[in-house]
């Protein structure tokens, strides 16, 4: 859980002058200055070292499983600690399915919030609404899980699922009996959790759209919505896609809340009413019970897949966002 700081991201600023260091024009460095710079550089190097060490740890510990199963680990759907056969397909499927379900629900909500906050809402209510949506990110994951178990799932069982079944019951997505813990519950919880992230970054992106774009559209006689649709959204498109991908990255790695409501079953099924499993949930549930070294190694490989996937997704999102809000750290403090 994170506190998204709507307020902490300063408005886009002018390009930094192209000097190697902002100090250069000011004063010559002596020894103590070099020591200071050296110390700060060491601390800054902690970050690249960290990401390399994380990758290294996962890779080294996953080696036995990598050697044993090869790439078929990714598409084998057996997970049998007794027979020592491990395949991550159900978890990879569950992770992707829950995340896409979450995006399906969260993207309209988050874009709605972002558009309202930048285009339609009167100035006086912008800050309060932003604050409320931001609070969603302050709720710890485990609290979402608790709420999911005792409030959301009974509500789904009592009202939502019967209604869905009555209308869409014929589709393959709503087959089977709904017991509670399910892909649907996991997807909805995830959706609520990622709304504040997507909304915060989208808002930064839309704020970075020059006012002249809006004004030009309005001056041509466009209605307010037409200005948004034809000028603002296309201008920020790459950044908005980045915001959504960033939300996807969040959803992929989210652990506790999902573990508590998704059912944790090694199954691949397209019905959202059935239990599923995610990579993060598998690690959370099975890591401390892994009795054999191959079992542990298989879980490390699951971690490796998850890590590489989220790093790639985050990197893509970041590049897209930087393209729109160049030089500004749009949403970076949020995430």
């Amino acid at each position, binding site marked *: *859980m*994170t*506190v998204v*700081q709507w307020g902490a991201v300063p408005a886009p600023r002018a390009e930094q002058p192209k000097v*190697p*260091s902002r*100090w250069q024009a000011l004063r010559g460095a*002596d020894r*103590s*200055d070099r020591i*200071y710079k050296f110390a*700060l*550089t060491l*601390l*800054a190097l902690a*970050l*690249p070292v*960290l*990401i390399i060490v*994380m990758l290294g*740890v*996962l890779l080294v510990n996953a080696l036995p499983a990598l050697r044993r199963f090869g790439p078929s680990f990714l598409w084998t759907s057996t997970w049998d600690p007794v027979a020592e056969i491990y395949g991550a397909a159900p978890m990879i499927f569950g992770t992707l399915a829950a995340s896409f379900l979450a995006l399906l629900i969260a993207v309209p*909500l*988050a*874009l*709605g*919030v972002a558009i309202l906050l930048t285009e*339609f809402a009167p100035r006086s209510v912008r800050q309060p*609404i932003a604050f409320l*949506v931001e609070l*969603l990110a*302050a*709720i*710890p994951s*485990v*609290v979402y899980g*608790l*709420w999911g178990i*005792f*409030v959301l799932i009974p509500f789904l069982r009592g009202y939502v699922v019967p209604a869905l079944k009555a209308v869409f019951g014929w589709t393959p997505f709503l087959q089977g009996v709904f017991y509670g813990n399910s892909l649907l519950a996991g997807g909805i919880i995830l959706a609520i959790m990622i*709304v504040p992230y997507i909304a915060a970054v989208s808002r930064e992106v839309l704020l970075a759209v020059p006012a002249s774009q809006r004004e030009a559209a309005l001056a041509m006689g466009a*209605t307010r919505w*037409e200005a948004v*649709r034809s000028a603002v959204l296309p201008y920020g498109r790459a950044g908005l896609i980045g915001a959504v991908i*960033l939300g996807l990255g*969040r959803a992929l*790695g*989210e*652990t506790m809340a999902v573990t508590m409501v998704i059912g944790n079953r090694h199954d691949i099924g397209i019905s959202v009413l059935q239990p599923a499993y995610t990579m993060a949930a598998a690690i959370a549930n099975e*890591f*401390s019970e892994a009795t054999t070294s191959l079992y542990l190694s298989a879980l490390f490989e699951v971690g490796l897949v998850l890590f590489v996937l989220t*790093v790639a*997704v*985050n990197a893509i*999102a*970041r590049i897209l966002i930087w393209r729109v809000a160049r030089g500004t*750290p749009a949403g*970076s*403090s949020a*995430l």
Partner: protein
Amino acid sequence: MSARAVRRQLVSRAMTALVVVLSLIAVLALVLILGDLMVKGASSIDWAFFTKSPVPAGQSGGGVANAIVGTAIIVGLAALIGVPIGVGAGMYLAEYGTGRLGFAVRFIADVLNGTPSIVVGIVAWTFIVKPTHRFSALAGSVALAILMIPMLARTTEEMVRLVPNSLREAALALGYARWRTSLKVVARTALGGIVTGCLIGIARVAGETAPLLFTALGNLNFSLSVTQPMQTLSLQIYVYATGPFDDWHRLAWASALVLMGLVLVISLTARWVTRQRYGRIR
């Protein structure tokens, strides 16, 4: 107005309404969650909740004193480890971060910010729990510190960059050395913002559960030793929420309310401090 113009205005109105409805749904989710937390949590909180440790499963009564103290210790230790590194890295980014290394560090910090916390838990397990053959609060703190560092680096950078360059130039013109200018003038000016960033980072990791599952592990008894397993509120909620007893569920809601309150107080204080200092600039 022509019919076409009327239709366009109607579409615009309809889309505005849609956007408002979508936003209301998002806000409604928050209200529902906080409301349930208040209603179900508050009814379960009594004095014993804060002063007693848990009683054996199935019995009623008991409290989560051990988890409250554990959360404070683990998060405090994590801050001790994470804050110097994170703030230092942020100072580097703000003061010297214009080159290729600065770009790389900034990018990696942003990417690390989105890394699943469970993976960080595995890494801490590998380096601390595995070699010492023992789950420990310290391992949990290291995991939380790793989660804090990229976030603190970025917020510190933001805050330090708000310091006008003229302050720097003035200090240098008076003959201050660069390091002294950086620490005593630049960092000092941005101190309020840096503290805010640290508080928000602390609030964020205080609610983390996943990285503690196989590092701090949890502990039913009161423990102050950082080399032993230790309970936190988040772990307590997880165990109690997924357990079979009604009394556990009651304690889970109460713990959740306390944890949420803790997180909110820290982050609202941080926001309030920021607004006092920087409110007029933005």
